Every structure is written in structure tokens, then in C-alpha cells.
């Protein structure tokens, strides 16, 4: 009865809040001890897990993620789906396998591991060992907290997919037996309570409950260790050391170890590191005072674990990190943790690069990019900004990356290109003045690539890995940008920040984000969402026809059958056509604009005349086409639909304009041909150095 009352109380407390949480609802509490033998790559671990049943129903079994079993053999679902390679890195199938074996799992002193079994809820793969199901001798009552003692052994895989080792570099991500998520009714719009514990897939990331972590890592003294937590204790004995870290209010715990790390420390100081123009811009756009926006900012310790050959990148990463802390603090909410750790992975361990964990992430440095002229390529900065900001869309708004990967990757891609373009301009720069904006690169990958799926799908259910990539990263990022352009700056950013603040420390769904975007009532946004998030909608504006000709006045028979401006005598020659060059007007022009695809979007149509006059019309995009007939004193030279390229989803922006023969401006084709001819000549002339 007592348990039942507790359960009811807890369920009430855990019911979906109508406003933002100040802190997460903690479901788990981990106390982990782990020892690493860097020679054999073997790990021994023990954890005490306190898990609370936050639902209103008893739970009769527990489910655990054993992610490293994805690297156990070539029969795992991860290996089968990935083919043993991820993002260009290949598995070392010689000796790079890894695993996690739970050797003991006790609840109230009762050993449960013998009754445990592996299940593959997603694909039924009998060989997959990434989800462990543990039947319980009695159900855990609603609100009850079970304390479990778990022991396990593991072997670190050679890194090709996020976690693993290369030489003495270790990245421990998703490394311990982690309990799945038992979602109570109402969480993420669920209609009934149940486990959400998916297998580890090639194209999926993670989902977990909030909690506190205390992790003690034992390893040789020479190692420098960075982690998601704050170091609270150090003990050394017999050439080994035990470092104890603590972190509250996170939903995973990652750490890294490498004897070669150079630790670079800095502090984000909001008094100095928030750019004045950015806070002024945010204040105006969001309609909040600067003092209001500054509230909640605090100093953040930045720890950069740098490879010794990447010293040239220390300031680059730190400056990018500070900018990201300032930007996200203004446009979402201030970063709540006291520290952030940046892990610079070695160049022979790029499989670990570009991965986010909470309060710690891995970034990219390539020595090649430290030298002129490649130092103008801001790829390292982009990766730092991208991975840190995952800490918001995966971390602080703890979305389910298995089922809604776009909520992390897509929103993050959007905020990444906003941040990168604002700070660095073109991030792929080739002198002089030639480069691409991050937004343009993402837009090209989204609008101009093949699509086979909607944005929203389970991560492993996209047609191909490329389709997962497109629909998780650039397509949602670009579609959010499209919504921004439709709503306007103020409405969009207020909705965006509102969403971030509302779902901080919670678990939002796609519909929660989309509701925030729909709230303004813009019909085009409302129409766009189902076509893109749940469909394969597309749009292509074009000018189908643009012509202009002299209007020589009335010609033919009038109502009284009198010939006007012509002689009906068949023996006489018809009058010569008037000379267009000397025609003083008026002119008759015809323009046909079209919108192909199933996304209805509004667009401007601009007609430009030879005398410089412009006629601008707004077309609501309804119907497949619109026709304009214009009489003007000057000939039409150009017709253009969406001249400012505001339809960022436009599949072919090149057909958005047409020129008439009356256009006398310079030729871009001649310029392009000339430059290319020179490029070919440069290429050919290099043979003079050989032949």
C-alpha cells in the first residue's frame, strides 16, 4: 500500500509539466567503478544502479543496452547494417572486435543474470547482443526504486564507430550496461507505458533517462583522463591511479584517456565573451531585455584535451566553443553545467571524431588545415560548434535519437550553420573571395539530392545510409530555415527559443517542435510540415516563358468591318514589319511562372524592363502556374520568380529566371568559359614541368 501511494505520488509528480522544468526528473543513479588494462584493452566494471519506476504500472523485467556488443562479431545488427564501416572508417576485423559481458546482476541479493536473455526488438536478429532483457522475480512497483548491483567485463573495440581505442587513445562512449528507458504513459505522447530500448543500429544514436553519475576510473598513471564529470578524487597505488568523477543531471557518461593529451584550460566569461552586437540583435529579435537574456549565464570551465601535434588548433577550438556558448545561451537558454570538455581525437582515430556526449564531445583537427591556404577552411570550428550544440538538442532536450534522429541532428545542423555563417562567413574559403556558406552546403545536400524518405522515420528504417544522412541532417536543417524565412525573424526566433526553454531537461517529440513552429498560424508553415516531415514533398519554381514584342496598335478589321492599319487589296504587298530597334513603345510582354512539386509556397515574381523599371507581384503559389501579360513603355528584359532565393527548398534555382532578347547586359557564360579555359590551360601547362 505504501508503495502504491508512493507510486501514485510519483506518477503525479512525473506527469507532463505544462511549463519548463528547472531540473530533470531523475530516474537513474549510477555509481560505477571501472578498471582499464590498456595493453589487453580489457575492462572490468561494477556498477550500482538505482532505477525508479516512474510509470503507473509495475515493471516485470528490465532492459539494458550493451552497446559494445555491436562490435562483437560480424553478425550484429550494427555490423550487418554498416558493413563494418561508418563515415568512411572501417572496422578492424582482424583483432578489433569488442564486447560487453554482464557477469552478475543482482537485485536484493538475488542473482538474475542466469535468467537474462538477449532480444532484438527491432529486427529479430537472433545474433544481436545489444539488448539484454532481465526478468525480475517480482515486479518493481510504480514509484519504487530498485537498487541493482551489476558486474561486467568488456573488451574495447578498435575505434571505427564512435567508441574504442587506437594505440593508447581510448574513447569510452556508451560503454557500460545502461538501462533502457521505461517510458511512462504521457512521456513523448505515449498512450501506454512501456520499454523503449532499441538495438544499436548503424544509423542510430541513443536515448536514456536523466540521472546522477559517480564514476571511478582506474588505469595506469601516465594517462590523462577527460570526462563528462568533475574530478572529485584521485588515488594512486602501484603505478595505477583511480580518478573519481561526479556529474549530476545528465543521461549518459563518457570519458576519454590518452597519455599524449595536452590539456588546455580556459573559461567562458559571459561578461567578456558574449559579443555586444549579438546580444543586441537577440534582444531586439526576441523582444527581451539584455539583462533578461544575460540572466542564467555563468562562467563555464573549458577543458580542451588536445593531441600534441594539433597545438595550432587550441585557440581555434576555444574561440569556437566560446562563440557557441554565447550563441546558444542567447537563442536557446544559457548552458547549465559548470564545465565542458572538448576531446581532440588523433588523426588515426577519426572514427571517434565528431561525436557528442553530454558535457563532453569529440572534435576534429587535421594538421594539414593548420597551414596556409588551408587554414581558411573552418572545418575544425564547424565541428566544435556542431558537436557542442548537440549538447542542447540531444543533451538538454533529450530527444530519442533512435526514433527521431532529426530532432538532434537536424535542429543541430540548423543552429550550426546559423552560428558558423554568422561568425566565419564562408567556412570553406579559397582565396580570393571564393567560398561556400555552411548553409549553402547543407541546402545543396538537401534540396538538390535524391530523396527516398520523409524526414521523420526510425533511424534504421531509411532506404539507405545516404537517405538517413539527408533526412536527419541537411533536409530538416534546411526545412527549418525555410520555416524561418516564412515566419520572419521575430516570430521564428521567439518560437524557437520558446521550444528550447519549454523542453529543457525533458524529452520532446517531433510534434512538440512542430507545434511550436505552427503556433504562429502561418498557413504555409502548416502546409509545409506534413509534406516534408511526413512526406517526400518538394518544390521547384521556374519561369516557363518570358517574351516581349512591340505593340503596333490595332490591326485588322474593326467592328464596322473597316480595315485598320492594313490594306486588304491582295495585289498590294503587306506593310513591312516595324523595326523593333526603333520602336518607341508600347510593348507587350508575356511571362509564365510555374511551381512544380507538391509543396505550396508563396513567391515574388519580378519583371524587369529595359528602362530599369521593375514590376513586383506576390504569387501565393497556389495552382501550378501563373501568367502575366504586361503592356509597358519599355521592353521586358528579365522575368524572375523568387529573386532573393527565399525558397531554400527549391530543387532547381537556375530555372528561376529568364532573359528576353532585349537584355543587353554582359554575358556570365563568357566569363565562366573564359575562367574555365584558363583553368584548363593552367592544368595543361603543368605538363611543361614533365614533358
Amino acid at each position, binding site marked *: 500500500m505504501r508503495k502504491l501511494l508512493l507510486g501514485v505520488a510519483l506518477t503525479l509528480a512525473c506527469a507532463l509539466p505544462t511549463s519548463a522544468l528547472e531540473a530533470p526528473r531523475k530516474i537513474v543513479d549510477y555509481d560505477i567503478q571501472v578498471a582499464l588494462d590498456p595493453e589487453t584493452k580489457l575492462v572490468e566494471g561494477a556498477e550500482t544502479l538505482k532505477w525508479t519506476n516512474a510509470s503507473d504500472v509495475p515493471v516485470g523485467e528490465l532492459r539494458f543496452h550493451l552497446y559494445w556488443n555491436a562490435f562483437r562479431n560480424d553478425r550484429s545488427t550494427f555490423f550487418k547494417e554498416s558493413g563494418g564501416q561508418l563515415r568512411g572508417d572501417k572496422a578492424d576485423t582482424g583483432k578489433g572486435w569488442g564486447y560487453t559481458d554482464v557477469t552478475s546482476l543482482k537485485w536484493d541479493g538475488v542473482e538474475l543474470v542466469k535468467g537474462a536473455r538477449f532480444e532484438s526488438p527491432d529486427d529479430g536478429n537472433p545474433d544481436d547482443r545489444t539488448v539484454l532483457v532481465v526478468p525480475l522475480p517480482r515486479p518493481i512497483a510504480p514509484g519504487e526504486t530498485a537498487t541493482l548491483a551489476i558486474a561486467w567485463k568488456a573488451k574495447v573495440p578498435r575505434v571505427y564507430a564512435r567508441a574504442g581505442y587506437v*594505440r593508447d587513445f581510448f574513447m569510452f562512449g556508451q560503454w557500460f550496461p545502461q538501462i533502457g528507458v521505461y517510458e511512462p504513459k504521457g512521456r513523448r505522447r505515449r498512450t501506454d507505458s512501456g520499454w523503449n530500448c532499441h538495438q544499436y543500429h548503424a544509423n542510430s544514436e541513443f536515448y536514456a533517462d536523466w540521472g546522477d553519475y559517480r564514476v571511478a576510473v582506474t588505469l595506469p598513471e601516465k594517462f590523462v583522463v577527460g570526462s563528462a564529470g568533475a574530478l572529485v578524487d584521485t588515488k594512486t597505488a602501484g603505478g595505477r591511479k583511480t580518478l573519481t568523477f561526479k556529474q549530476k543531471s545528465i543521461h549518459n557518461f563518457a570519458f576519454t584517456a590518452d597519455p599524449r593529451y595536452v590539456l588546455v584550460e580556459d573559461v567562458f566569461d559571459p561578461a567578456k565573451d558574449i559579443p555586444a552586437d549579438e546580444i543586441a540583435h537577440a534582444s531586439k529579435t526576441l523582444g527581451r531585455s539584455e539583462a533578461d537574456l544575460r540572466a542564467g549565464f555563468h562562467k563555464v570551465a573549458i577543458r580542451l584535451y588536445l593531441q600534441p601535434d594539433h597545438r595550432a588548433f587550441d585557440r581555434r577550438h576555444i574561440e569556437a566553443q566560446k562563440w557557441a556558448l554565447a550563441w546558444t545561451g542567447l537563442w536557446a537558454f544559457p548552458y547549465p553545467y559548470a564545465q565542458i570538455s572538448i576531446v581532440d581525437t588523433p588523426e588515426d582515430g577519426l572514427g571517434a571524431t565528431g561525436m557528442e556526449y553530454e558535457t563532453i564531445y569529440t572534435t576534429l583537427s587535421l594538421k594539414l588545415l593548420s597551414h596556409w591556404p588551408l587554414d581558411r577552411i573552418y572545418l575544425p570550428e564547424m565541428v566544435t560548434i556542431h558537436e557542442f550544440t548537440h549538447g542542447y538538442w540531444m543533451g538538454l532536450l533529450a530527444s530519442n535519437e533512435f526514433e527521431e534522429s532529426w530532432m538532434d541532428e537536424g535542429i543541430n545542423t540548423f543552429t550550426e550553420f546559423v552560428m558558423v555563417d554568422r561568425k566565419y562567413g564562408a567556412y570553406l574559403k579559397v582565396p*580570393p573571395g571564393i567560398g561556400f*556558406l555552411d548553409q*549553402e552546403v547543407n541546402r*545543396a545536400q538537401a534540396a538538390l539530392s535524391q530523396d527516398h524518405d520523409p524526414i521523420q522515420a526510425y533511424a534504421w528504417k531509411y532506404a539507405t545510409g545516404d537517405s538517413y544522412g539527408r533526412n536527419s541532417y541537411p533536409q530538416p536543417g534546411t526545412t527549418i530555415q525555410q520555416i524561418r524565412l516564412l515566419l520572419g525573424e521575430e516570430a521564428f526566433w521567439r518560437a524557437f527559443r520558446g521550444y528550447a526553454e519549454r523542453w529543457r531537461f525533458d524529452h520532446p517529440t517531433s510534434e512538440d517542435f512542430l507545434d511550436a513552429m505552427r503556433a504562429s498560424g502561418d498557413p504555409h508553415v502548416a502546409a509545409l510540415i506534413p509534406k516534408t516531415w511526413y512526406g517526400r514533398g518538394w518544390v521547384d519554381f521556374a519561369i516557363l516563358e518570358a517574351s516581349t514584342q512591340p505593340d503596333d496598335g490595332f490591326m485588322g478589321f474593326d467592328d464596322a468591318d473597316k480595315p485598320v492599319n492594313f490594306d486588304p487589296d491582295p495585289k498590294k504587298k503587306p506593310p513591312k514589319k516595324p523595326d523593333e530597334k526603333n520602336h518607341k513603345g508600347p510593348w507587350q510582354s508575356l511571362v509564365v511562372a510555374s511551381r512544380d512539386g507538391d509543396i505550396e509556397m508563396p513567391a515574388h515574381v519580378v519583371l524587369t524592363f529595359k528602362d530599369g523599371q521593375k514590376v513586383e507581384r506576390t504569387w501565393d503559389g497556389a495552382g501550378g502556374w501563373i501568367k502575366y501579360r504586361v503592356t509597358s513603355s519599355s521592353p521586358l528584359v528579365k522575368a524572375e520568380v523568387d529573386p532573393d532565393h527565399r525558397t531554400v527548398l527549391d530543387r532547381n534555382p*537556375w530555372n528561376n529566371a529568364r532573359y528576353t532578347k532585349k537584355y543587353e547586359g554582359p554575358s*556570365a557564360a563568357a566569363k565562366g568559359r573564359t575562367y*574555365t579555359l584558363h583553368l584548363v*590551360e593552367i592544368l595543361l601547362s603543368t*605538363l611543361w614541368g614533365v614533358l
Partner: protein
Amino acid sequence: MSVTLSGLSAALRHRRLAGVLWLSLLASALLTWYPMKALFAIFDEGAFREALVKGWDGWGMLSFLLTQRHEIAIAEASIAAALLAFALLQIFLTGGVLRVLVDGRPRPVFARVVAESAGLFKANLWATGRFALTALFWGGLLVAAPVKLLGKLGKDAPPHTFLPDLAFWWAIVVGAIVFLNVGLRFDLARIALARGDARNARGAYRVAKQRLSGRRASGIRIILFWLALGAVVQAAFTSAGLQINPHTDGAVAGLFLFRQAGFFLLAMVRVGFWAALLVWEERRRPAYSVIGSASGGTTWKSSEPMAASAAASARPETGSSVTTNGSALLSS
């Protein structure tokens, strides 16, 4: 006169010869003209015309690259064809260029270069084949194999530490040394063919080996100097060309002429290089040399320098069997 000054002086004097080389460059590049015309037609029909006339448009160019894949593939094929044509043209023309330089008569040039080149083409082609094989052999033996070995030794070494760095720099430095050595012998072999010191590639390579004996470093210095000079000319004109960013059709035509002037200058550098190498080779010729070994017998001939006019009068306008030991360059 130093070798370098001789080269510079010849480059200035033999402008028509440089013109032939420049024409070969332009003609080869123009093979891409029609595919490029088709590729870039959309620039004048599409939405980015005015933006591209003004300068760069990132979104325009990205979307152009992604929406015009078919046209780009055709243009790429035409570039490959141009590369092949230019390579063959250079193999063809080098013999004639060298003969004209040996003669020292700055004109008439075009017909002579073509005629002399035709006579030497087969031997030059064989020499090029041998160059490719030797480059592959020595590159494999002295560059690829050691780099692979260093890679194995440094398999577990962190990036950018001693062994991986050594492998990288070995590939760059030893690769360059191998290339320069193999290239220098190839160049000297072609000189031997042009001078008539040998009738075929095999004999020419043997003569080249004799010329190189003990003097490789100074020969390589010549190559490096002229390569560097060419790189400076190329970089200067490319950089200036990009800065120009023409906004009118007239300015585009002006840019075209400006860049052609740059390529013409580059061709002059090429002529200067050959002239300098000829002078260097001339100074390394023995008092008596073996010629005509390919004919089966051995003919000994005096190698006294000849005056330009004498050299010219001694040689018919065409034919590959002419032998001469003198150089007008030396006496100029």
C-alpha cells in the same frame, strides 16, 4: 655567359618559338571550348547571371555543380582529351623546338618546328615511354617501397611523430629527387636526339648518362630554377587574373588577352629552360664523342663549336639523320 643568362637571352630572342608552344597550349585547351560552351550556356539563361557577372555566388555555383552533372561529365571528358592531346603535342614538338634552338635562327619557326618534330617524333615517343618506365621503377624502388616499409614500422606510431613524418617527407623529398633525376636524363636524351648524337631512344639515354656523369646536381639546379621561375609567372598571372574580376564583355576579353600573355611568358620560360639545358649540355660534351652508333658503325667527329650560320647551312630543313656536335647557342 652563364647558363641561366643564356637561357634568359634565348627566351627573349626565340619569342616565335615560345609562340609555337603557347599555340599548342591554347589549341589543346580549345578542345574543351564546345563542351564548355554547352556547360556554361545556363549562366546566361538562369537566375544567377547578374550575380556571376559581379563576382562569386556560392549558392549559384553549388547548385550549378549539382544540377548540371551531365554537362560537367562531358566537360571533364573534354579536359581529359585536351590533356592527352597536349601531352602528345609536347612529345611531338620538343624535338623541333630543340633543333631550332640548336640552330639559333629565330625565324622561320613554325614550319621548321613541325618538320623537325615529325622526324624526331618516333624516337621522342620511345624516350617518353622509357622515361615513364624509369620513373615508375625508381619511384617504386626508392619512394613507394621505403614509404611502405616506414608505414609498417610506424604502424603503431601516433600521427605526425618521427616515423610517419619521415615517411611523408621521404615521399616528398626523395620523390622529388627521383623525379628530377629521371626527368633530367629524359631531357638530355631528347637533346641527344635533337643534336643527332643518337638515332634512337636507347642510344640517346646512353649519351644522356654520359653527360650526367658527375654533374647531376648542377643539371638539377637548372631544372629547379626554371620550374621556380615558371611557378612564379603562373602564380602572378593567376592571382592578378582572379583579382581582375571583369564585369563587362570587353573586360572579359581583356582578361583573356592578359592571361594569354601570362601563358606566352610561361612558354618563354619553357624555351629558356631548354636553351639553358642545351648550353649546360654543350659544356659537358667530350672533345670527341661517339655518334651514329645506332647505324652499326662508329663515326668519330670533331666537336668544335660551329657558328650559327654554319650550323644552319649544314643542316637540311627536314630529316632525322642529321648529326651535329655544335651549338649555335654556345657561340651566340
